Structure formats: structure tokens, C-alpha cells
């Protein structure tokens, strides 16, 4: 294993922060304290962290409607994110975007997305910039199993292949798109679609941080070195429903239990590093407690923060009428 202790701690910190963030949102939303609708990433944390730990600040990602994890993994500030979810003036987008539109260009986060399949074409553009300017950067586009059926995904993979762009396509396959199973909606194999366009394509166990990290390292390094685009098909699962308020009646109890107990990437990571003697239990527990405290503070500050007002309605536009 190539990761040192510091990197391992960082990985766990990131995953814990994502977990705490979205768990907290789950409860806040249920308590009717949050506006709009939110899609939670709980259960998929290893994917965001495993990928983003291979990226530097200048590399970019484009995310999905289920974007909190990607944002945190790419370094967005959780206080500012939480304020955004509450629609506050100091939110990461000034309260104008909300959960589905979190973006922080200074961190290389090109935006969550309300349009399924909307992100990967943007990634092509970022990759074209890096190729043209010869910066050795890469851009990563996340999308779901459901999104894999959009024409925009196929078009993007083909274009990346044709132009040999430093673009990585990451399909986070949690088995469902809303209430529809992947088995029903995906014809053939997602992996084969990447191969068909000539992409270096790999299937990855998304519950295992180390496997994601390794696979990502391989394809990202290649892309940096001009070897072109790749597809990672990450098999994962999410704990909560499609969005908050979804009764998840399309999944069985057993499946829900299995996801919670056997497919939890944090538990798996913890077990692995402790059994291998890489980290101490107390170190991990400290991280857990710190994450809890951070998120608690973020929620409290967000609730107390000010809403935008009439003057903010007509900012960020080129003409006011």
C-alpha cells in the first residue's frame, strides 16, 4: 500500500466529514428545517475520497445532483456548504444555488448539477483547456448509473477519446436511478460502453477505499501524462433514498440492512487499517468526534446566519431588470 499514515488519516477525515455532513442533513431535513430537496451521498464516501485524493487544487471535477461528497472531497468549506443548503447569504453560492448547485472554482469544483448527465460535457472543456495549455492537469466527471444512459455521457466519452483529452469519467453505480433499478435501465454493460469508445475502462469496488484509490491513481496518472481518457465504473450503494422524503419502497428491508452493515466504506476502511496495524482506533475515533463537532458547528452557524435580501436578487447578472 502506497499511502502513508498522514494520507490515511486524511482519507478517513474526508470520509467522516462527508458522512457527518449528510447524516446531519438527513436529520435536519426530516425536522423540516431545510428548504428544497437534497440527495445524500451516505454510503458512497470511498468513491469521492479515493478519486479526489489523487487530484491537486488545479485539477477539476464536475459533480452531480448527489454532490456533497464530491464537494467536500475536493476541499469545499463545509460551513459555507451548509449555509448554502439553508439558503443563507454567506453560503458558498450566496444562497442562490442550494444543494444541487454547489460550486467553488477556487477549489477546482465546477459545480454540482441538477441536470442528469450535465457534468461530463463540461469536463471535456476543462480537459481541453489543460491539453491546450499543457498544464498536466486532469478533469473528472462524476455521473450515476442512471445518467450513463444519457446521450451526453456517450457523446462525451467519444469526444474525449477522439481528442485524447485528460478527462476521467467516473460512473458511481449505486444500483438505482430514482426508483428504477440499473438491471432494468442499463442495456449491456457500463464498462463496455467505455471500451467501445476506446477508453481505458475499469470496474472498481466502491465500498473499498483502497481499490478506488489505486484505480484512480492509475488512470489519473496516465491522463496527466497524455495517455488519454478513462472510465471507472464504481460499484457502490447509498444508504438513504433517492432524495430526502423518498420512502424507498422499491428496496427490500434485507437490502437496506445489508447496505448499512456490510457495505459501509467507513467500517471497511476502519477494519482494514486497524487489522493491518496502520492506524490506532483512538486516532480514528478522534477523527469521528472532530467531524461531528465540525458539522454541529456548521449547522448552528448556518441556522443563525442571515438570509439574503432584496438587494441580492439582482446581483450576479449583467443587466438589472
Amino acid at each position, binding site marked *: 500500500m502506497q499511502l502513508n499514515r498522514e494520507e490515511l488519516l486524511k482519507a478517513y477525515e474526508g470520509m467522516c466529514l462527508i458522512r457527518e455532513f449528510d447524516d446531519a442533513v438527513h436529520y435536519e431535513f426530516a425536522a423540516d428545517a431545510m*428548504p*428544497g*430537496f437534497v440527495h445524500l451521498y451516505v454510503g458512497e464516501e470511498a468513491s469521492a475520497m479515493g478519486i479526489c485524493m489523487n487530484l491537486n487544487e488545479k485539477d477539476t471535477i464536475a459533480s452531480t445532483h448527489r454532490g456533497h461528497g464530491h464537494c467536500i472531497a475536493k476541499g469545499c468549506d463545509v460551513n459555507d456548504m451548509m449555509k448554502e443548503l439553508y*439558503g*443563507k*447569504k454567506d*453560503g458558498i*453560492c450566496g*444562497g*442562490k*444555488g*442550494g444543494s*444541487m*448547485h454547489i460550486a467553488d472554482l477556487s477549489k477546482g469544483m465546477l459545480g454540482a*448539477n*441538477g*441536470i*442528469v*448527465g450535465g457534468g461530463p460535457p463540461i469536463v471535456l472543456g476543462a480537459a481541453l483547456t489543460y491539453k491546450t495549455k499543457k498544464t498536466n492537469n486532469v478533469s473528472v466527471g462524476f455521473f450515476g448509473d*442512471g*445518467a450513463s*444512459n*444519457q*446521450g*451526453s455521457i456517450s457523446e462525451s466519452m467519444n469526444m474525449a477519446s477522439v481528442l485524447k483529452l485528460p478527462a476521467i469519467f467516473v460512473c458511481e453505480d449505486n444500483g*438505482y*436511478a*430514482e*426508483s*428504477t*433499478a*440499473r*438491471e*432494468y*435501465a*442499463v442495456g449491456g454493460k457500463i464498462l463496455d460502453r467505455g471500451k467501445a469508445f476506446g477508453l481505458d475502462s475499469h470496474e472498481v469496488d466502491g465500498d473499498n477505499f483502497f481499490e478506488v484509490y489505486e484505480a484512480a491513481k492509475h488512470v489519473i496518472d496516465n491522463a496527466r501524462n497524455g495517455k488519454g481518457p478513462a472510465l471507472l465504473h464504481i460499484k457502490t450503494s447509498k444508504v438513504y433514498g433517492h432524495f430526502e422524503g423518498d420512502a*424507498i*419502497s*422499491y*428496496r*427490500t428491508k434485507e*437490502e437496506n440492512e445489508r447496505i448499512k452493515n456490510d457495505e459501509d466504506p467507513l467500517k471497511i476502511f476502519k477494519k482494514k487499517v486497524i487489522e493491518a496495524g496502520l492506524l490506532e482506533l483512538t486516532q480514528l475515533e478522534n477523527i469521528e468526534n472532530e467531524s461531528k463537532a465540525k458539522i454541529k458547528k456548521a449547522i448552528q452557524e448556518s441556522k443563525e446566519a442571515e*438570509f*439574503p*435580501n*432584496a438587494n*441580492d*436578487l*439582482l446581483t*450576479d*447578472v449583467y*443587466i*438589472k*431588470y
Partner: protein
Amino acid sequence: MPIKTYREAINEALLQEMKKDENVVVIGEDVAGGAGTNGEQDAWGGVLGVTKGLLKHFGRERIIDTPITETAIMGMASGAALTGLRPVAELMFVDFMGVCFDQILNQTAKFRYMFGGKAVTPLTIRTMYGGGLRAASQHSQCLYPMFTHVPGIKVVLPSNPYDAKGLLIQSIRDNDPVIFMEHKNLYDTSGDVPDESYSIPFGEANFTREGKDLTFIAMGQTVEICNNVADTLKKEGKTCTVLDLRTLSPLDEDSILEAAEETGKIVIVDESYPRCNVATDISALICQKSFDSLKAGIKMVTPPHTPVPFSPPLEDLYLPSEEKVLNVAKEIL
């Protein structure tokens, strides 16, 4: 008469037309839900439950869940309409038309004319629009002016449960492509809806209030706003006409002019972006055809020219409200 919600009225229209005509099929993402899962089959019935319950009557042969693939959905539905089915395709949020507009704009809308009148395309596209749910910039738009701009598509905006049922039945029976737009905020509103099937012809606007002092012209969700403002003004001794356009294509020009001439003072309330929207179009119409009847400049209440903001106070400031409409009305009363 039985009281039903807007959601129930739409569901009933689909149920009755599907029973009546076996060529009617419903196509869309999660219109039943649960496809390929081990859990409940009719798990969603659409994101907001509008098509829930149809699966048990018609099975997956006619309630067709699709992958997330709007271009293919719209294209498939258009092609099916062209060749003998009468599909009701769902575009979950109207904002997603960005993904599939070619199939609507360049394909289905053009068939009849471009093929020299040889084609009929009995396609209905059901879609949700409008703000108020804190759904932010990509899930809150109105966009009906964009469809209204395109010849060949009919654009329908029911404002209440009675109209929703009658206009949807008409949409399904109609031999041209229709985009049937449902405002998310209306689903839980209720009103009298007959149990029988009935259809309301397109191109007939509806007067929901009659008065002498001012005319409101409204569509979809803004009808309710104008009705309430008219009722408020009535208590203050001013009576207002409210005209519900019902369909934007075809547009009932006669009723618009009739309503305008009735009072000579006009406020048009439109939730869509303010440039090139329905309000601007109608005020142009009135100015061209009935300028002499005007006793004051035409007023419009619309959002500002920005995307829909997420933050609740911003969205409230953004949307037309009763308060705004009342204030604007008072300016010319």
C-alpha cells in the same frame, strides 16, 4: 359535484382515456417506478405521484418506465404518435427540455407542415413547471414562452382541477403535439371535477371573474393569484375581470380583446422570464388590435430577468405575489 385535487384530476383523465383507447400509452422516467427492483412495483408513480395507480390497471406494457434519456423518450413518443399510438410522454421537469428540445422543436412540431399535411402526431407531453418549491435554477423554470414560440405545438396551462382534467383529455384526443404544463404548486389544490369524461376545446380562454374597473390576464398558477386580488379589490369597491388563458397555443385573441375592452385597464401576470414572454406578447396584441380601448398603460407583473434563486426569501421576492399584483393594480385603478 365531487371535489378532487389537481393531481387526482390528471390521474383520472389518464385513467379514463387509457380505458377508452388502447392506443394511449404513458412513457417516462419512474412514471410507475420500481422497474427491475425487488421491492414495490408502482413505487413512485412519477416524482410527485401523479401517475401512481395506473400500473395496476394497464401493466408495464402501457405504463412504460424508461431509462434517463429524454431525447430518446421524446423521439420515441413522437415516432410512436406518427405511426399509430397516442402516447403521453412525461418530461419530468420542463427544465429538462434542454436535453431533448430537438425532438420537440425540429421533429415532432414540424411533421404535419413539413410533410405537406400527410402526418398526424397525436402526442401529449406532460411536464411540471414553475417556482415556489425551493428547487433552484434548474428545476423551477416556466419556459412556456419557448414552446409558444414554436409553430406546430399546442401549449396548455391548466389553472385548476376542472380544467386539468378536461384539457388533458382534449390533449390526448387531439391529433397534434401538445405540451401540457402542470404547475407544481397546483397539485394539492382542489375543486369540483365531474366523474364523467369531458373535454375542453383548445383556444378558449376562461373568464374567472367579471368586473368593470380592471382586467387581469393570467395563466396557470397566476390565475389563482389574480382571482384572490380581484376578491380583495371587490371588498374595496372595485370590480375586476380575470381572464385565464388556458392555452397559449392556440391563443384566444378574441377573449383577450374582449377582456381588455371591458375595462381598458390591464394587468398581465406571468411567472416566466420578462423578455419575450406571454405578457409581452399579449400586450403587443392588445396594442395592435385595440389600442383605442386602453385607458392606461398596460402593466405586467413578472419575475426579474434572472434565473430562479434557491434561497426562500429570494425566491419569494422573485415570484409574482398577490401583494405585488395588488400594488400594480392600484397604480392604474
